[in-house]
C-alpha cells in the first residue's frame, strides 16, 4: 500500500489501512508527543487521543506527493500536544520563576552525533515544560520567535529567552552526560 492508498482507505474507515498507518507512523508520532510532553504516560495519553483525531479528520488530508502524509500526521500530533500543553497552561508561568542560569560554555568541538538518540530524547523530555515547548517549535517546527509568541500567547522576547535557556540547560545536560561516561 502506498502512502496515498493508506490515506484513502483510512477515510473509508478500512481497519487494515488504519493499522498499517499506525504501524508505519505511530513510532514517530509517539516520539513527537514524548518530545513535547516529556512525561511518558501523559505522552501516551496524548498520542492515543491524537491518533483518534487523525482517523476522524483524515478526510481533510490532501495528498501532495510522497511525505505529505507524514507531514500532515506530524502536524496534527504537534497540535494535539500543543493543545494539551495549552490546557495545562504551564509554560507561561515559568519564565519569571527560574533564576538566572549560569552561562554554560558551549564547546563547539562537542559532537552531539556520538550521543545515542534515546539519550538526546531523554534530555529534551527532561526540560521544563515551557522551555521544551519553545525549543521544539523553534528547532523542529522551524517557527520564528514571532510565530511562537503568537502561537503560545507569550511575548517574542519571552520566546527567545526561553529558547536560550532551553539551549543552555540542554548543553549542561550534554556535558554532564559526557562526564558520566
Amino acid at each position, binding site marked *: 500500500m502506498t502512502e496515498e492508498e493508506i490515506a484513502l482507505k483510512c477515510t473509508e474507515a478500512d481497519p487494515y489501512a488504519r493499522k498499517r498507518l499506525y504501524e508505519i507512523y505511530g513510532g514517530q508520532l509517539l516520539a513527537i508527543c514524548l518530545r513535547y510532553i516529556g512525561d511518558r504516560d501523559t505522552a501516551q495519553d496524548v498520542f492515543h487521543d491524537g491518533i483518534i*483525531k487523525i482517523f476522524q479528520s483524515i478526510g481533510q488530508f490532501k495528498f501532495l506527493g510522497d511525505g505529505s502524509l507524514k507531514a500532515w500526521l506530524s502536524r496534527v500530533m504537534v497540535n494535539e500536544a500543543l493543545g494539551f500543553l495549552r490546557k495545562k497552561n504551564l509554560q507561561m508561568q515559568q519564565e519569571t520563576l527560574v533564576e538566572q542560569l549560569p552561562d554554560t560554555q558551549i564547546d563547539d568541538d562537542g559532537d552531539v*552525533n556520538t550521543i545515542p538518540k534515546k539519550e538526546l530524547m531523554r534530555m529534551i523530555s527532561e526540560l521544563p515544560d515551557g522551555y521544551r515547548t519553545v525549543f521544539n517549535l523553534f528547532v523542529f517546527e522551524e517557527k520564528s520567535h514571532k510565530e511562537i509568541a503568537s502561537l503560545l500567547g507569550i511575548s517574542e522576547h519571552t520566546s527567545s529567552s526561553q529558547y536560550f535557556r532551553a539551549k543552555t540547560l540542554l548543553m549542561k545536560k550534554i556535558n554532564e552526560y559526557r562526564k558520566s561516561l
Partner: protein
Amino acid sequence: MKDNREKWIDDIRNRIEDYSEPLPVGLWEKIEADIPSAKVIPLWRRWQSVAAAAVAVVGVSTLSLWYWSSDKYVNQANNAEILNAVKPATVIDAQPLMSDNIENEISDSGNRLAYNATEVTTDSRTIDFAPVNDVILMNTVAEEEVSENNYAVTEVDDDRSKEKRINMMKADRETAKRNAAYLAMSVEKDNKDSKIQFGVMTGNIPYSSSNSFSGMSRLSTLKKVNSNPNNAVAGEISDATASYTQVLFNNIGKETYTDVKHHIPVTVGASLKWNLNDKWAVETGLNYTYLYSELKSGAQSYIEDRQKLHYVGIPLKVHRTIWDNSTFNFYASLGGMIEKCVSGTVETVYAEEGNVKSSENEKIDEKPLQFSALASVGIQANFNKWLSIYFEPGMAYYFDDNTELLTIRKDKPFNFNMQLGLRFNLGK
C-alpha cells in the same frame, strides 16, 4: 533565523527528527476500540449529498413526466429515472455493511483488550467513550488549531534546506515544500472566508425551439381577440377581431398550419453569494429575462404574432462544494426562482392572400408569476483573490403559470439550462 541556531542544535534536530519510539504493546487495540463509529460520517455525508442530488434529479424528471407527456420527454425522463434509481440504492446498501464491520471490529478488539488487560500499563486512565457531540467539538477545535498552525509556518529558509541536503536530510526539504504548500492551502482557506461574493451572470436555455402543426393557433388569447368566428356576425367587434375572423374565413376549406418559434431566452442578472462555510453557500439575486416568440398561423391568408415578454425574477440557490483547489471549485447546486412578468406586448400582422393588410400592437394584460426549480453543477475558476468566472450547466423545470400565454417555458417546461458569470469577492 539561521544565525540564531548553532550547529550542535541542528545536529540534534537531524538526529532526532525522525526518531521513532517503540510502540507499547496493546496500545493499538485500545486506540482501535476507542475510535468512535461516528468517524464514518464524513464519507457518508459525501455519499448522502450525491444520493440527494440523484434523488433531486429523479424528482425533477418525475415531475416533468407528470406535467409533460410528450414522447420524447417520457423516454428521456424514464432513462434518467432508471439510471438514478439504481445508484442511490447501491449506496444505501453499502452503508449498513460498513458499520457492521466496524461494530464487529470494535467488539473483537474489545475482547482482545480484556485479554491483554495485564499488559496495559496506564492503569490510572479510564477508557472514555466520548459522546459523539464531544468528539465533533474536539474535532472542530483540532481543525482550528491545524489551520492556525499552518498559518504560522511562514518562513521557509532555503539555505537551511540546502544544508540539510548535504546532511542527507532530503526529507527536510520536502517538509519545507510541503509547509509552503500547506501555507498556500491555508491562505486559500482564508480567501474562502470572505463571506460575500457579488456576481453578474447571463445565460438560459441554450437553444430556441420551433414547432409546427396543422390548424390555426395564437400565442396568447387576448381578451379582444375571440377566436370564435360565430361572433363575427355580432355587431360590436374590434378591428383585431374582425381581421382575425377574416383570416379564418379566408382559410375555410384550406389546409392551414401554424409555425411557432420561441427564440433563445436572454437572461442577465446580478447575484449575491454567501459562503456559509467551506462547503455550503447560498446565492440569491435579481434576474431579468426576455422571452421572444413568433407565430405564423394560416395559409395564404395568415396572421403573425410577435410576442415579447419581460420577466424580473429572484433566484435562490444552495451550493455544495464537491471538490476544490486553489484555482477551481466544483459544486452542485439546487434551487428555485420566482419570476414576475412585468411587461409584455404582442405585435400582430394580418395578411390576406399574401398581402399584409393590417398590423397592430397590443399590451398583454396578463402578468403571471412563473415558478421554476433548478438543479445544476458548476465549475468556478478563480483568476485571483477577487475575481472568478463560473459556468453552470443544469436542468430547469418551469411550472405551469396557468395562463394562455405560450412561451418556450410552456413548450418545454423541463429543459437544459446554462449560466455563465463572474463573481467578485467583497472583502472579508
